[in-house]
């Protein structure tokens, strides 16, 4: 088995790791339990960060805008102070550090790859202040704990999470015949219902109609944040009977009797166990780990595992890895920029993220450039993980990641930025060669391409070496 399997299903091998005698078992054994988050710094809870979100929007919207309505300059200054006080510019940086640290040091890197996958399947795209305060903790507290449960349980948790409900506007969706809907003349917002069908479960392959979307939106009415004057839209999620559409509903030909908050769990059960959903999500998993255009042959064993285990994610993950192993030598898969960065960081033991002591934040001055570094790099290589442009998340297809500028960004990172991230003990040519040997069958050929610079250890020399190595076909893809 090629060494590239460690990059197909994980992040390659760090200088302290050696290839396993049985790579398939090595990978499969990583999926039964949830590894602890290793970041030694602060890991705030979702609830705490939502409180900060509330302080930020309340402070801006209800206090500063009114106080400084005639003084643009003073308003801007006060707003910047509020940013510092609430950590508005800080928490996303900390989340990126937590995430990167995990993929770099986890003893279960294969599990971490699935964590990235599911976070992107149930993506939170750029909206309001979600990336600043909420998307990170959502990944940690909603996605991660469900990875040893069933797909259905994952969908239930995601659908009633504050983050997804805010992301897809379900708090603004009123049953037109509900008490509040009638009183206020309000109606449904279809956004969340549509994405629950299209992106999270059955996909358009199920052939649902506009009426199905409306009916599902009716079922979902009432699942909303609890609004109050102080917390505004950042209150906990609850089921507000007074927003809920009365009467029976029909989605994809199945009738759901008027049953208030229990309707949602029933419809999610039917969607998450629908054969078209199972095929859609299995295909997506194979696309992520095997190849852009997976065949039925590749996908079917994953579907079988899904059916046999009633949607146990542990069993589904194991089936995906088994398939990835089986097809490792005959398929190719391109790595999107963030995974590429994580792999370089692990394989060459780069000095990212910043140490947790230095990531510490005092809420008194704005984050410094070093604290912003990792997030800045991610943005510049085109893959800021919590800022997908649309609710369908980041693409898994090579064509979406190959353009002159996107490739140039990789050259830029590897030749300009990366040398500054090489630890002082790792600047020798021998270190690079040992990392190559640990991770690539073709390490001798790779070494020959940088042989001209073998005596150089300056940033420039390292830039020339890493600029070449990191952009070779066998590193950009497997």
């Amino acid at each position, binding site marked *: 088995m090629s060494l590239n399997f460690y990059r197909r299903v994980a992040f390659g091998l760090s200088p302290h790791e050696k290839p396993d005698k049985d790579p398939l078992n090595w990978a499969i054994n990583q999926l039964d339990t949830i590894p602890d988050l290793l970041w030694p710094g602060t890991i705030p809870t979702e609830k705490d960060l939502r409180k900060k979100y509330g302080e930020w929007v309340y402070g801006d919207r209800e206090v500063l805008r009114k106080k400084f309505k005639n003084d643009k300059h003073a308003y801007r200054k006060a707003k910047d102070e509020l940013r510092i006080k609430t950590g508005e510019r800080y928490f996303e940086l900390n989340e990126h550090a937590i995430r990167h640290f995990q993929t770099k040091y986890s003893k279960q890197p294969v599990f971490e790859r699935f964590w990235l996958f599911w976070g992107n399947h149930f993506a939170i795209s750029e909206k309001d202040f979600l990336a600043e305060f909420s998307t990170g903790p959502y990944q940690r507290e909603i996605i991660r704990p469900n990875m040893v449960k069933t797909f259905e349980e994952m969908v239930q948790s995601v659908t009633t999470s504050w983050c997804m409900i805010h992301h897809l506007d379900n708090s603004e969706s009123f049953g037109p015949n509900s008490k509040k809907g009638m009183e206020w003349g309000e109606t449904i917002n*279809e956004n969340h219902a549509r994405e629950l069908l299209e992106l999270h479960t059955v996909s358009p392959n199920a052939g649902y109609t506009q009426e199905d979307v409306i009916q599902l939106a009716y079922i979902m009415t009432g699942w909303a944040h609890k609004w109050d004057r102080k917390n505004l839209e950042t209150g906990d999620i609850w089921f507000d009977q007074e927003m809920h559409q009365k009467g029976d509903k029909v989605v994809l030909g199945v009738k759901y009797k008027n049953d208030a908050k229990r309707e949602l769990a029933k419809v999610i059960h039917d969607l998450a166990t629908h054969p078209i959903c199972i095929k859609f999500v299995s295909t997506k998993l194979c696309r992520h780990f095997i190849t852009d255009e997976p065949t039925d042959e590749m996908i079917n064993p994953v579907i079988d595992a899904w059916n046999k285990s009633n949607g146990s994610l542990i069993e589904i993950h194991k089936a995906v890895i088994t398939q990835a192993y089986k097809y490792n030598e005959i398929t190719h898969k391109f790595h999107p920029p963030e995974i590429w960065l994580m792999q370089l960081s692990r394989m060459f033991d780069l000095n990212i993220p910043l140490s947790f002591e230095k990531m510490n934040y005092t809420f008194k001055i704005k984050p410094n450039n070093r604290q912003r570094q990792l997030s800045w790099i991610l943005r510049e290589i085109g893959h800021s993980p919590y800022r997908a442009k649309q609710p369908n998340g980041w693409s898994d297809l090579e064509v979406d990641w190959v353009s002159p500028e996107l490739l140039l960004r990789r050259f830029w990172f590897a030749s300009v930025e990366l040398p500054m991230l090489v630890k002082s003990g790792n600047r020798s040519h021998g270190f690079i060669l040992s990392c190559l040997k640990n991770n690539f069958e073709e390490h001798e050929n790779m070494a020959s391409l940088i042989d001209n610079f073998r005596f150089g250890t300056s940033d420039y020399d390292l830039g020339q070496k890493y600029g*070449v190595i990191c952009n070779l076909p066998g590193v950009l893809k497997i």
Partner: protein
Amino acid sequence: MNCTRRNFLIGGSTTLFLSGYFPKISFASMQKKNLIIISLRGGMDGLTAVPVIGDKRLKKLRKKLILEDVLNLNSDFGLHPKLEIFHKLWQKNQAAIVHATNIPYTGRSHFDGQNLMETGAHIPYKEKTGWLGRGLLASNIIGKGLAISLPMPLLLRGVPQNNNFFPSPDFVETKLIDQIYNEFKGEHNELIKSTLDTIRQRPLSMQIATDSDDRKKLALEAAKQLKDQSGPRVAVFDLDGFDTHAAQGGVDGAHADELEEVNKIVTILHENLGQAFDNTLILTLTEFGRTIKQNGGYGTEHGYGSAILMAGGLLKKSQVYTDWPGLKKKELFEGRDLNSTIDSRAVYNSAMSVCFNQDPEFLRKEVFWGDELPDLSQELFKI
């Protein structure tokens, strides 16, 4: 830099010399024609950009989204106050609108819709190339596409050697590419390899550029490249954020902010293309319009019919070109959306035929599978 002999000859005082020898018409046909598409992702609300002022129903259904200070276009239609440049160009017959138009897609999904607005097809994800890419290929115009975005938009795929511009924070030594180029072997590395080819052929100003945070700089560079007689003939800008389910607002809301971005880009292109603006068409593209009625969050839902904003010297005249379907309940699509009475692909097909000097019938067959798309070049463009 880009100063080839050819564009030197047509610039400066030699122009006079040339025009003395050739009749004006043949000089004009020598000029390169530019087609610029601005993608408005999320569903641009045609009725916010170009409100129908003659119909009170709109105001009634959108009490919280009322526009004041609408710029008048004619007795029936106005223009959003943030679209100043279109209003200015309108006076000079260099801006026009196609209204109540959309791609033939009624599914109301962003992802399917955006896929179809770019592929021009009927079934989402079926086609892997964009109508603009296919149009360039059919017209044998290779390596003349420029995207102002970090990824390559689907719209331009289908023709090889497209370029994009979105420079990194620091200068990148492209000679590194020479050292690894030959390592890209086999079919599975073809896409990366051909992209490396494109990088190696970039004009100097693009090679040395840094920093893409400044939208103005991006539009300026695009104008510079498009102005160059040997430069790109097609440019694609990408804007998102039109999906205003909540707080859409009127003059200053979320939709207005996005329209302001469109206005900025067109303003910079107009100022910096100079005379090349006379040989340019700028058209917007979106996946669908939005519902007539405001929703629970003072926003609007995914709808159907929208509008195309157009600017450039290749427009025939200032006009709102439409077969207006009306806003009465029974006139709306499924009782809720502005209908689409013009397949927007007919507009894009006609625009390509003008800019690429191609027979629209030929393009219709090559690009849109012979779909029923009337030729609108006579009505909309200078030919």
